[in-house]
């Protein structure tokens, strides 16, 4: 097919596909198209996925030298360990989220696409969330095996905590990935800004996970931490959606 004909047919088709339907449907569809694009490109080369799974296993092995892996104390700190692994491994996925668009000026093309920056942000956040959750569930298995932690005992509440905590990490990580995308010292600035910002969410996740892994069901005082986590998710999702336009466009 000649190049001119390709351009004639493909561009209007994709634009009309993105922009059809009501405002809300259109927004969701735009976000899903971005998420699909990110997931497809990641699943094709699996760069961040492979790196973060291997990295999380490396950290799990390193932790075994830091303390006695067979001690009773392990149950108390297991939640902390798990979320340290998640936050370090997650950074590998999140850091690349916007930086990967720098090649060939893809970010400029995305900004010029007929969609709001918030749809672009939510699409990227959804893709990162899916990738991070996959990495976390995969690394949960070696964690259970290596450290003899009973992950199945409270599996559903544990999955709820993982989902809420991962969304918190994703929103902050994706937002700051966008914020630092044009900086000289991007790799240095991201961890300095992101980790202190995530502390309330990580604190809640660590407390909840330690309790769940030691067999305590989700009730009483722990419900407060679920509220902290959900509140953190809602507040920062709203802030990110409002401010992403200022960060990316100006």
């Amino acid at each position, binding site marked *: 097919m000649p190049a001119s004909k390709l351009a004639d047919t493909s561009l209007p088709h994709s634009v009309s596909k993105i922009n059809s339907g009501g405002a809300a449907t259109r927004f969701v569809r735009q976000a899903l198209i971005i998420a699909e694009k990110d997931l497809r490109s990641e699943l094709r080369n699996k760069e961040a996925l492979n790196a973060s799974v291997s990295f999380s296993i490396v950290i799990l092995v390193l932790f075994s030298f830091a303390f006695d892996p067979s001690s009773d104390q392990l149950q108390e700190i297991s939640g902390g360990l798990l979320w340290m692994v998640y936050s370090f491994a997650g950074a590998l996925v999140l850091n690349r989220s916007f930086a990967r668009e720098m090649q060939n000026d893809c970010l400029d093309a995305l900004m010029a696409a007929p969609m709001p920056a918030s749809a672009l942000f939510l699409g990227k956040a959804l893709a990162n969330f899916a990738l991070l959750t996959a990495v976390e569930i995969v690394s949960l298995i070696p964690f259970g095996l290596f450290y003899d932690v009973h992950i199945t005992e409270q599996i559903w509440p544990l999955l709820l905590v993982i989902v809420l905590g991962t969304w918190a990490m994703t929103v902050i990580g994706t937002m700051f990935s966008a*914020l630092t995308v044009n900086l000289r*010292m991007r790799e240095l*600035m991201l961890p300095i800004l992101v980790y*202190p*910002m995530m502390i309330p969410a990580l604190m*809640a996740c660590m407390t909840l996970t330690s309790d769940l892994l030691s067999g305590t069901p989700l009730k009483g005082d722990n419900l407060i931490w679920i509220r902290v986590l959900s509140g953190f998710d809602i507040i*920062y999702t709203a802030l990110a959606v409002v401010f992403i336009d200022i960060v990316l466009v100006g």
Partner: protein
Amino acid sequence: MRDKIMYLLGAVFAVLLTWDLYKIFILVPDEANQGAIFRIIYFHVPSIFTGFTGFFLALIASGLYLATGNLAYDAFAASVTEVALAFASVVLATGMIWARIIWGVWWAWDARLTSMLMCWLIYAGYLMLRRAIEEPAQRARLSAVVSIFGCVDIVIVWKSIEWWRTQHPAPVLSIRDGGGMAPGMEAPIYFNYLALLCLAAILVMVRMRQEKVAREIDSLRRMAHAY
């Protein structure tokens, strides 16, 4: 005019501080349980008040910058954050000295100490971010967003302290329903807050003048390159 205001504030600061020092060291007796070391509260608490006043003003200035695009608000936000961070450092330092004497350790991983340290780290990150960006408008825009995100984060953490077990002494000031201090012992805290606010205002004014000069030099350099 600006110089006159600065000298005036300096004079108020000097008078207030001298009067406060007299009261703290001569008039106020040693605390029954803690002895002389309790006097550190007269600098610890006013410093945290001053620091948080600064962070709050930085939040407002950041919001105003995003609303108006006026770089003067950005200069104010940057200056006030720097000065507030200095006061936050004083809070951490005085708290640690007090903890060494009373608790026997320099640091305890208590919720309030941890959150104060986190607050310090967030604003240190903010200042580092400012250094990493050359272009003034981009720097102002991104750091304003970080300032707003950081402020919200601090509110969440401050709330979560009430749900977490804490080793830090409960509030003693009557304005926070503590009522744990005699009126004569509590008053110098507020006067010291006023004194430190004057000092902070002077430092912010000096810092803003630096920002202004830096902007002028930058624009002159750009003009020179253009020729």
